[in-house]
């Protein structure tokens, strides 16, 4: 399965969003996620299954005006 994570194609071993985040280095990070433009809350990540071609956004606090 290939998915787009923050604009980069990746091939995760897992299919659940929560596991994919851990696999890609986000363990314990304060982040918020969206899949295909839809917000996915933290508690929903464990049972959110990703499919080939999905677009995942992983956002964190950043400087802003």
């Amino acid at each position, binding site marked *: 399965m290939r998915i787009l994570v*923050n*604009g980069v194609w990746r091939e995760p071993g897992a299919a659940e969003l929560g596991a994919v*985040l851990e696999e*890609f*280095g*986000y363990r314990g*990070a*304060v*982040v*918020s*996620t*969206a899949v295909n*433009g*839809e*917000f996915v*809350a*933290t508690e929903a990540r464990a049972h959110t299954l990703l499919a080939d071609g999905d677009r995942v*956004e*992983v*956002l*964190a*606090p*950043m*400087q*802003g*005006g």
Partner: protein
Amino acid sequence: MLQLYGVGVGSRLLLGTARYSSPAVLTEAVRASRTEIVTVSLRRESGGERSGQAFWALIRELNVRVLPNTAGCHSVKEAVTTAHMAREVFGTPWIKLEVIGEDDTLQPDVFGLTEAARILCAEGFEVFPYTTEDLVVAERLLAAGCRVLMPWGAPIGSGRGLNNLFGLRTLRAHFAGVALIIDAGLGVPSHAAQALETGCDAVLVNTAVAQAGNPVLMAAAFAQAVEAGRTAYEAGAIEARDFASPSTPVVGTAFLR
């Protein structure tokens, strides 16, 4: 004391956290500004660098309230989704709602803005809409449930000051009980003072401080200007007039011709 969605705020200066030369300068500028509210955003996080985590740790140490924005959003859907993501990460119902309609001026898309505000207010968000000084748009935003308005002074980052002072005065007079925060376009402390003198409740400044020669000093200058402007507003300014009016008493003037 200024009330923003039921929260009492001591400082009438809100500070953006972007474009500082270093985290240390940002920290010192926030302290020098004496602000109680800083704006923040959400951006893509790398699982390797995790730079957002360090930034968030820094902000939490500052012990200030955060106002997340939806900067960069050009559609209602983007803005609403970003607001949901921000509420989860920052743990606040506050959202500085930006829906950009034009890239050269970063002018708000007021049609998208009012629609996004309607959706978010209905979902329990406390919306700070980045808007123009348009009275009808303001009316719609208030009808949508907004209790704060953030009209622009000038395009974001332009430093032009209050482009439409008449429009802002009209807005102030029309919506006397609504918190007005001038967002965007201020360049120097006198712009902030003018906004407060006009009766605006607060200003949000970012670039003018962050990109100043000495951001920490400029943050302090804006803090002073905001205090002076507010005090002047409370004192009640004289009306401007076209001709001179002698300040020294005329009665008793010596006849020495």
